[in-house]
């Protein structure tokens, strides 16, 4: 990087706002799907209206119990989860969860949609498409914890494109495809989604990992292999966001291992227009609160007046 986008050190106002298409967010910090429930319970901890937005728990057409316990394994600087998309199904989400969220959160949120067939994706996305307070449809073609569908759609450019196309055809809201890192060339999937009409991309979902307890020789989570995330994966996420930024011209939401304001800034330099914070919320319910409070201080320290100026500036 050669210049800091003309930013001057110590020049008063710090503008944290960013844009995802036409949608202007007060700040780039969004809790990631699956690590923040349907949001409202975090209002026990702080005023969640400070968040840029909230990515809701992955939702499917029908209710899902998810995988058997244990679903969680600790790793160095991260964890493995095998939740398996537990959720009450889109109908209940709309009737019971979203009203509770609305009573405490007054900004648009991001629906996270999973499915086992193209029909499933279209059905669930169309339900959320009707709601005025959903800002973006985040299409999860990258869940490693379910068989059939899930990540399979995110590992093949043609399949990823067909999900994207089908959802785009039946929905009005911006469609962001959430990509899996468990591929050889993430830019191929990213470009296929862009060509299929995606309005943006979200990356990365969890990496496929496994833990075995050395005391017993047994796999720790019930599914064996499951989704690995947390600070350990941040370099992979930054690299992938960087690569995809070169390959496409649509906004990217960067996810993976973000814990601090520095991590946010790093991800934005790589090319992210906004970020999602996942595992960090689980080990500290105040993770996003702390990041948002720290961001202006870091911007001041680094001489950044407008956060949106640094997007992709590492290239």
């Amino acid at each position: 990087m050669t210049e800091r986008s003309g930013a001057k050190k110590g020049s008063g106002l710090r503008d944290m706002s960013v844009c995802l298409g036409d949608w202007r967010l007060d700040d780039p910090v969004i809790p990631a799907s699956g690590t923040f429930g349907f949001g409202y319970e975090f209002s026990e901890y702080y005023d969640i209206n400070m968040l840029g937005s909230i990515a809701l728990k992955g939702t499917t057409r029908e209710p899902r119990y998810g995988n058997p316990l244990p679903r969680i394994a600790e790793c160095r600087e991260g964890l493995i989860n095998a939740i398996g998309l537990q959720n009450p199904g889109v109908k209940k989400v709309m009737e019971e969860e979203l009203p509770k969220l609305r009573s405490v959160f007054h900004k648009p949120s991001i629906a996270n949609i999973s499915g086992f067939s193209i029909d499933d994706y279209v059905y669930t996305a169309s339900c959320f498409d009707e709601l005025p307070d959903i800002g973006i449809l985040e299409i999860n073609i990258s869940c490693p914890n379910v068989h059939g569908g899930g990540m399979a759609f995110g590992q093949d450019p043609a399949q990823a494109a067909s999900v994207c196309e089908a959802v785009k055809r039946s929905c009005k809201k911006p469609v962001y495809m959430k990509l899996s890192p468990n591929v050889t060339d993430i830019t191929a999937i990213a470009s296929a989604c862009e060509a299929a009409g995606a309005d943006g991309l979200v990356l990365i979902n969890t990496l496929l990992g496994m833990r075995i307890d050395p005391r017993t020789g047994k796999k720790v989570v019930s599914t064996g292999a499951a989704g690995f995330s947390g600070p350990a994966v941040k370099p992979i996420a930054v690299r992938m966001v960087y690569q995809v930024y070169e390959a496409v011209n649509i906004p990217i939401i960067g996810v993976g291992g973000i814990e601090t304001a520095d991590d946010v800034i790093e991800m934005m330099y790589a090319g992210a227009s906004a970020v999602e914070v996942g595992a960090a919320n689980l080990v500290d319910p105040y993770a996003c609160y702390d990041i948002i409070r720290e961001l202006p201080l870091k911007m001041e320290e680094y001489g950044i007046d407008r956060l949106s100026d640094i997007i992709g500036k590492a290239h």
Partner: protein
Amino acid sequence: MHKKVKYRILYNSQIADRTYRMRLSGDTGDIKAPGQFINIALPGFYLRRPISVCDWDQEGLDIIYKVVGDGTRLMSELSEGFELDVLTGLGNGFDLSAVKKGETAVLVGGGVGVPPLYGLAKRLMAEGVSVKAVLGFNESPQMFFEKEFSELGAEVHITTVDGSAGIKGFVTDAMKELSFDHYYCCGPMPMLRAVHRLCREKGAEGELSFEARMGCGFGACMGCSMETLSGTKRICKDGPVFKSGEVSFDD
């Protein structure tokens, strides 16, 4: 900040085989009921460690934990004055209003399921409930808190699997002959199942405290879900205590 506190270690000493008692000082305002737990961040470990509140007052709280892996081993090596980052007042806790003055409650604990029952016994007795404690251990070196429960005035029954103290066998062997109005149980899954079945046969109702590997401990990740007769519940947030009529062990 609500529910996130710094606790300073006042003491941390061994009370039985691989079992330690730690006294923490700090704000306990978020702790509302016995059976709630805290989630402790340990330096060098990504996830927090959930441990039940054994007893608490305005100045601080006590926990009792067993060393089973690297995290609890590190805990056992922490010294006085060390500050821990803790999420406190987690989970629902036991329902004290389920028994009335003059009635009898039996408190059934296995191993490190015993600690939360101590805080419960103390509060029930203060309400005029008479308490019988059935405390189960594998073998006598692992026993703790027999004296503490007795000193509260509870009727204490000890069981050990190898017969090295008290009744040889399981907690259910000691419970068979006891009469009581309500039961409270905390311990490993096979014990919960056995106690639940025995009490159902006796026609008694009660509450059972469950454990699971936790991602967060406060309801955000769905890592600890359990099917109950009233739907899918999170052990950390909707539990860890569930009514006997609500749980099903498929038996």
